[in-house]
């Protein structure tokens, strides 16, 4: 039991930071309150270091002690989450309490802890990341469910407090109720899986499936779990909330929503589908495929998610809604690789690695687009009020008027489009190769068509800042007064360029992380490490 702690050091670090932030953020002293973002950063950095340094790798723990479906997944996923979390932090800075703090600094008001949201905001962000990391090391359905809820619940509140506008509250309520529906769906699925197999331990479930097949109750459970988890990744048919919530929340929180729940959903999907394995169906000559029924629903979901996301994004005039629908579409792309599965052991055929790597790339490059929206406001010339920029027209000529923001947007949009040689391109290629390797030609064609449709609206995001002349009659967008958001955007754009250099080795890491000792024979291990887990027959119960 105590051995399981080895998996939890990053989470514990985050939790302790949360406790500190919750107290510090409510301090009466403005200077101390200001520290909360810094403390959050320190905690995340500590979690990053701990994730790399302490998370056990394959062969370093007994199967009973930890997650054994994908023994190298936790270390990769946690490192990724901590790193992207650290990158998201400068974007989130200044989301809550900015006006209040200005009033307090001006001496017009005294500090009122009940009105202040700073402590909760950072604490909930950390809670959410804690849940996200817990997802990655889940070895049990109950654990997985709790981790998913720990990821989601804080985000509902974050949406609500991210803006003083009513829209944010409306978005939060929608998000909460629909989220509860989704959670109910996959919780029911987990219950059915338990009912069908008699256990909640993921590796034992996998053994039961391997030994005696998938009975109808478990199959129903799997389907419910997959569809319920589709809410987290914003896939059809659970995608409806996405545009309303992204538009209602402040752009910074929307940027977080595009990564954190999606990452949790995909990691959970990999774990849940990992119990079934990609060793069933007729899929191609290698026989690597999910059971036919699961393959079909994931196939349908992937095709619909890509298409619905992209065609609806085409019609939007609000950039944030475009990004929301494109987030739906990106989930569809990743589902293609999820259908393909781990492949035949080579990196190019490994769809799970493609998903993990795409999560990384998406986390990095999507952040930049939201950072640009979050760091600029358009001041109304009449009453001096500032509105967040949201329409395409607001972006007109941004490269000339606000070069840092404009170029960040151009680079990130091109990368999201998958324009070579940016990071998005290198992330998209494995999706295609894994789909082809798995014989899912139709799905790959749909993926290609959708990438073309996406070009319509992503190129508008490039054209508006880069090629259009700024409109002389409207005022130039002003910086919002949080320089760290601009920095986050620049970091994101730089990441979309610089990470190309290490894309190969990062993908190798993802490839290793998604290695499932059940489906890949130890002899094929490229790394030459000893077999990660004993054969199924010898595994102790």
């Amino acid at each position: 039991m105590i051995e399981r702690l080895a998996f939890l050091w990053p989470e514990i670090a985050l939790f302790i930071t949360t406790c500190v932030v919750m107290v510090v953020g409510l301090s009466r002293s403005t200077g101390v309150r200001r520290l909360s973002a810094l403390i959050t950063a320190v905690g995340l950095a500590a979690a990053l270091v701990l994730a790399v340094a302490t998370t056990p790798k394959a062969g370093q723990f007994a199967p009973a002690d930890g997650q054994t479906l994908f023994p190298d997944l936790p270390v990769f996923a946690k490192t990724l989450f901590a790193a992207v979390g650290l990158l998201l932090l400068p974007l989130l800075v200044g989301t809550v309490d900015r006006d209040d703090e200005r009033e307090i600094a001006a001496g017009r008001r005294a500090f009122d802890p009940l009105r202040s949201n700073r402590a909760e905001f950072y604490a909930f962000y950390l809670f959410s990341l804690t849940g996200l990391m817990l997802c990655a090391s889940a070895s049990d359905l109950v654990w997985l469910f709790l981790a998913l809820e720990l990821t989601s619940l804080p985000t509902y509140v974050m949406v609500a407090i991210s803006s003083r506008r009513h829209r944010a509250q409306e978005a939060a309520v929608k998000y909460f109720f629909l989220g509860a529906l989704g959670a109910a769906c996959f919780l029911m699925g987990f219950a059915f899986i338990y009912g069908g197999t008699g256990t909640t331990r993921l590796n034992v479930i996998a053994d039961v499936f391997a030994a005696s097949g998938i009975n109808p109750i478990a199959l129903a459970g799997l389907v419910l779990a997959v569809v319920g988890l589709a809410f987290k990744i914003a896939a059809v048919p659970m995608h409806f909330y996405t545009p309303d919530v992204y538009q209602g929340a402040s752009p910074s929180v929307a940027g977080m929503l595009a990564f954190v729940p999606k990452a949790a959903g995909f990691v959970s999907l990999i774990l849940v589908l990992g119990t079934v394995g990609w060793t069933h169906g007729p899929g191609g000559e290698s026989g690597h495929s999910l059971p036919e029924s699961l393959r079909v629903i994931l196939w349908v979901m992937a095709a619909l998610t890509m298409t619905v996301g992209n065609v609806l994004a085409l019609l939007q005039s609000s950039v944030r809604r475009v990004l929301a629908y494109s987030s739906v579409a990106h989930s569809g792309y990743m589902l293609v690789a999820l259908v393909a599965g781990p492949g035949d052991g080579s990196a190019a055929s490994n769809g799970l690695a493609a998903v993990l790597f795409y999560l990384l790339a998406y986390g990095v490059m999507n952040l930049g687009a939201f950072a640009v929206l979050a760091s600029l406001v358009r001041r109304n010339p009449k009453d001096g009020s500032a509105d967040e920029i949201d329409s395409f027209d607001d972006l007109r000529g941004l490269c000339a008027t606000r070069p840092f923001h404009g170029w960040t947007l151009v680079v990130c949009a091109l990368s999201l489009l998958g324009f070579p040689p940016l990071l998005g391109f290198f992330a998209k290629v494995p999706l295609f190769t894994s789909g082809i390797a798995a014989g899912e030609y139709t799905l790959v064609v749909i993926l290609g068509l959708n990438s073309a449709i996406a070009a319509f609206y992503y190129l508008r995001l490039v054209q508006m800042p880069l090629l259009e002349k700024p409109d002389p009659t409207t005022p130039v967008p002003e910086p919002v007064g949080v320089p760290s958001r601009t920095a986050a955007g620049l970091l994101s754009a730089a990441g979309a360029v610089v990470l190309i250099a290490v894309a190969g080795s990062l993908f190798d890491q993802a490839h290793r992380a998604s290695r499932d000792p059940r489906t890949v024979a130890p002899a094929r291990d490229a790394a030459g490490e000893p077999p990660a887990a004993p054969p199924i027959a010898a595994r102790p119960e």
Partner: protein
Amino acid sequence: MTTALAATDLGSYLPIFLIVMMAITFAAINIGASLLLGPRRPGETKGGTYESGMNPVGTARKRFNVRFYLIAMTFLVFDVEIIFLFPWAATFSNLEPMGENAAVWLARIGFFLFTTVVMYVYGVRKGVFKFD
């Protein structure tokens, strides 16, 4: 670990069944007895919501001060804590005093209590317990 559900063994559900039956019977006997034995003198006061004390005024769908919710939630946390503490305390005394399991169990409840303390400190700083 048993991997099969004892779904067919209905005998294990017998205690639950008995409790349900006892509850129904108890309620039925009480209601029936008051119907049969109680005197009946209907009137203005007797027909009120509360037979004794104040008369209800206005609609029940009124807005409460938000502090009630805060208090309620704080109460809930402590309530849940008690629910966990009782079975823990009942089991802990049966463990080998200095064994490894005892340490783990102690650490677990310690962690659980720690979260409550953090919640409490947070509540205090947030001003939940200020009634002014």
